[in-house]
Structure formats: C-alpha cells, structure tokens
C-alpha cells in the first residue's frame, strides 16, 4: 500500500482543506508539471473555454434581467437594455413599509437565528471533538442524518405545534426554530474544523487549570477562526434565502422578512411593477452577494467539500 501513501503525500498540498485551495489552482499546478502547453492542450483549452462561455451566457441572462430591469422604469418581463437609465425604481421602494422594515426583520430573524445556531453548535462540537464516549458514533450519525432531513417535510407538524403553544407569528419562536433547523449542519461543520485544531495546545491550558469554557473561548476558537466564519456565514446565507419557514411561522406584516414580502410584492400592488420588483430583489440579495464577495470562493468550496466529499 506504499503507492497509495505516496499518492496521498503527493496530493497533500491540495487536499487537506479544499476550502483554501479552489479547483483552478490545483489544475494549474498539475499543468505546471508537464511544462509548456502543446498544440493539443491549446485546442483543449480553447474548446473548453468556448463550452464554458456558452453555459455561462445561459446562466447570465436571468441575472442580467434583474440588473437591467432595476434601472428601467418601464421594465418588461424580457431582458432588454433600458432606453433611459434611472434610479426611479429604487426611489419608489426607498421607504420603511416596502424595504427597510422587511430587511430589518430579515436581519433580526436570520441574525438572531445564526447566533443561536453558532453558539449551540460550538458548545456542542467541543465535547464531540475532544472526549471519548460510547454514544459518540451513533450521535454523530444522527446529526449527519438530520442534515439530510428535508425541513419542508416537518413544517406541518411544526406549524400545528406552534399554534398550540401560541408561538405562531412570534419572532422569538421563528428564530429558535430557524436556529434549530440549521443546527445539525453547523455542528457537523464546526466539529470538522475543531478536529483539525491540535489538542496539544489545549493541554497546556488544561494543566494551567483553565476550565472548559475558558479553554474553548481563548484557545480553541481563535485557532479555528476561518473555519468558524465559513460556518457562520454559510448558516446566515442559508437562512437569508429561506422562504418556507418564515412563510409558515410568521403572519403579520410587522414581522415578515424580505423573503416573504417579496412573494407578496406582486399581489400587493396589483399591476406588477417589474422594475420595482427587480430593485427590491437587488436590495434583498445584496447582503448575501456581499458576504460571498468577502469570503471569496472558500465559502462555496469549503462547504461543498465538507458536505459533499466527506459527508
């Protein structure tokens, strides 16, 4: 089995955390081995680039629509270059009723739920990562199983239970449920990142008499900062886009987040003003796009690697 070991060692720089090494980089180093590009490889590169462009254009058109329509006061359903660029659509929705309150509600709902999820996940991941116990494997499998559970399928009983305990239309209840529903994945991700923090560093903290929470806060968490931010941002982005949960659990306009008011946008105004719909979509999408730009590709790659390959 030495050959496998050698192969593992060879790929080691690329494999330990796919989060920091996106695909294109590995491709580059591999190509580097071979030296210069032959004519054959150049043809392959050209053909591949062309194929990517074709696929990319197809993906781009709907995105183009939302950007162009938002600046076009007479936007239609079809993507078209605005005859007159204007900020009128943004100005029309620039008020508390349409934009600020829903976005504020989204922030409260998703921010609150993200805090709930991450605090509970970090606390839970620590014993999972550091101690031995008989039920560890079954519990971990349960957590992994729960990550695959479609939340859609349990919303009716959740709704029914929330009605009985009078939590319907309560922001607090929605925050707790949204937080709990993202918890399995967050525990799974956090434990993975925590496992890669070497135990030796904590051991000295332990011998100096620091308690569990102290060690976790001042030794472990700082060492897994990047992993933790990936997990946090991913949790938040997932909640920000979630429609079904707030749609079911929140009712009054005062509590509705942007996901739900965007759905009611068309019915509220009768004749749909597509330009304004596009402008609101842009406001609503801006936070997740910004987080994605800040995190770079590690957000997607790290998550897909953790969830898909190890899963």
């Amino acid at each position, binding site marked *: 089995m030495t050959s496998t070991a050698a192969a593992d060692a060879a790929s080691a720089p690329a494999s330990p955390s796919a989060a920091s090494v996106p695909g294109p980089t590995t491709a580059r180093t591999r190509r580097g081995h071979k030296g210069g590009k032959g004519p054959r490889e150049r043809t392959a590169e050209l053909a591949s680039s062309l194929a*990517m*462009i074709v696929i990319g254009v197809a993906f781009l058109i709907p995105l183009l629509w939302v950007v162009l329509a938002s600046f076009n006061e007479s936007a239609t359903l*079809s993507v078209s270059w605005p005859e007159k660029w204007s900020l009128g659509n943004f100005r029309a929705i620039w008020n508390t009723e349409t934009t600020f309150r829903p976005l504020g509600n989204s922030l409260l709902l998703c921010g609150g739920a993200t805090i709930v999820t991450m605090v509970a996940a970090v*606390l839970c991941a620590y014993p999972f990562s550091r101690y031995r116990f008989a039920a560890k494997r079954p519990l971990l499998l349960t957590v992994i199983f729960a990550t695959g559970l479609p939340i859609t*399928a349990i919303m009716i009983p959740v709704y029914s239970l929330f009605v009985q305990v009078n939590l319907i239309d309560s922001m607090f209840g929605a925050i707790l449920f949204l937080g709990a529903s993202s918890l399995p994945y967050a525990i799974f991700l956090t434990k993975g990142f925590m496992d890669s923090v070497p135990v030796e560093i904590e051991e000295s903290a332990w011998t100096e008499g620091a308690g569990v929470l102290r060690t976790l806060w001042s030794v472990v968490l700082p060492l897994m900062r990047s992993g933790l931010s990936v997990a946090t941002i991913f949790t938040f982005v997932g909640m920000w886009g979630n429609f079904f949960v707030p749609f079911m659990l929140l009712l009054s306009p005062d509590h509705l987040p*942007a996901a739900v008011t965007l759905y009611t946008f068309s019915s509220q105004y009768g004749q749909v003003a597509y330009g304004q719909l596009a402008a609101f979509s842009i406001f609503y999408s801006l936070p997740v796009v910004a987080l994605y730009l800040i995190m770079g590709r590690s957000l997607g790659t790290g998550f897909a690697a953790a969830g898909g390959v190890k899963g």
Partner: protein
Amino acid sequence: MSALAPERPATGPVRPRPRRPAGIGDRLTLRRAAPMIPAAVLLVLFMAGPIIYSLYLAFTDKAIRGDGASKTSFVGVSNFTDALTDGDFWNSVVLTILFTLISAVIGQNLLGLLLAVLMERANRVISFAITSIVIAAWILPEVVAGYLLYTFFAEGGSLDGILGLVGIPPQTLLFSAPIVAVSFANVWRGTAFSMLVYSAALGAIPGDVQESAAMDGAGPMRRFTSITLPLLRPALATNLMLITLQTLSVFGLIFIMTGGGPDRKSQTLPLYMYEQAFSYGQLGYGTAVALLLLLIGAAASLVYLRLLPEEEKR
C-alpha cells in the same frame, strides 16, 4: 445515560494513555457534557419533537377548520389509503420523480460534472468568470431565483425574446410544460453545488496517476472513464444523495414560478402537501403526505448508498 456516567469501575486494563494530562481525550462525564445541553434542547424541542408529533398527526383527522378542528380523532391508516387512492397524489408523485430526475440526477449532476471538468482545462480568467456567474445563481435567495426564472420563461419573457431573434415562435413553457420549466429553473439554481463538489473531488485526484496513464497511451476519454470516474465514485454517490434530498423538498422555487399549476401540471409533492394542509386545512392528511415524501427520500438514499465503494460504507 450510562454512556455519560463517570468512569465505570475498572473493566479491563488501566487507561491506555496514563501520561496524558487529565481532561483531553478522556471519557465524557456528565459535567463535561454540559456544553452540549443547549444544542440538545433545541434539537429535541424543534426537530425530534415535530418528527415524533408527525407520526401521531398522520394518523388523525386534525384540521384547521371543520370536523377535525374542534375535536381531533384517531383515524388509523385512512390518511395513507386516501393518499394512495387519490389521482392527484399520484400525479404529484410522478411529477416529483420527473422533477428530481430531470433537474437533479441529470441536469445539476451532469452539468456540474461537465463544468468541473471544463474549469480544469479552460482559460483561467474565463473559468473564473463563468464559475462566479454559476455560483451567483446558487447563492441568490430562493424567491429571487423564482422570480428571475419566472421572467425568463414567462410569456413575453427573455426566452421568447431570444428564440424570436432566431425565428422560433414563443414557447410558453410555463403553460405547455411547466414541469420542464421549473426543472430548468432548478438546474439554473442548483448546478453550482455539484460543480463545487466535483471540482474539489477532481482536485484531490493525484496528477501523476493521470500522467502515467497518458504515458501508457491512454487517451483523454479512456483516462476519464477508467481513472477519473472510478475515483469520483464516492463524490458522485454523496452528491447525488444530497441533491436528490434537496430537490425532493423544493417548494419556494415552484411556488413562486407556477404555484403548482396550471391545472396541477407542476404540483410536486411539497406543493400538494401544502395545498392539502393549508388550502384545504387537512393537517393530518398533509402530514401523511409529508411522511410519504420522506419515505421516497429514504428509498433514494438507500439506492445511492449502494453506489458507494465497499470501503467507504464502513
């Protein structure tokens, strides 16, 4: 609770690693398990609770209004037999399977794999730009994606406009074949995930294996089928499982685009479930449908697990 109990009276030899400082790598004691309590409470109350409750609810006639509202009574398996004899239910089952096959198993999966392979070969700038676009489609909120794809497929939308340029008459897919339209929409929205999974998996395949095969005279096609694909098998199985489970439960995207219509032609199981539970108020029946949906998901997962190579199953 025995698992959490402090060290049991010596069963077997003394602890294997006596030099380790007390604390780490040790057995979990009740006190040490305390940090797990918040997560445990949340998961029991909001996840395990509803699941167990749904096992009860599915066998009752609980309703928002009407008979089952004032007094809920136990109705045995009649919710399930009602579902299994309802034409609309089977319509939804067929549409759900179609939707999952077209959009996840074929669309997202193959397009994601293709993109992952292409991005290794294509020009780096182009590859970066295109993958950014694909990922942007993925991170957008579900409702926004629903509206964007609605405008794309709608009558007088972008698709008609583009087809018109090359002289093809408007397709109005949202009316003629809404399940195809929402499937394409789901491909648009979900492909990035498969692309990222496969890109990471391809990156982990050591380059020298490919090189030595190339030196032995294996062409690109041959190398792909006999080296890349077998090595991708674990990623393939897990990716298929994850995107299938995800696609089975897609609600918002279809709800925004078609609302399940026209004439139930795009009403997948989650939308059928929603209609039964909230438009008709039949919470018990809706829950039974949800359990059947979970059953389909579990069956699909079992199939994919068989795709995993033996050593990965553990």
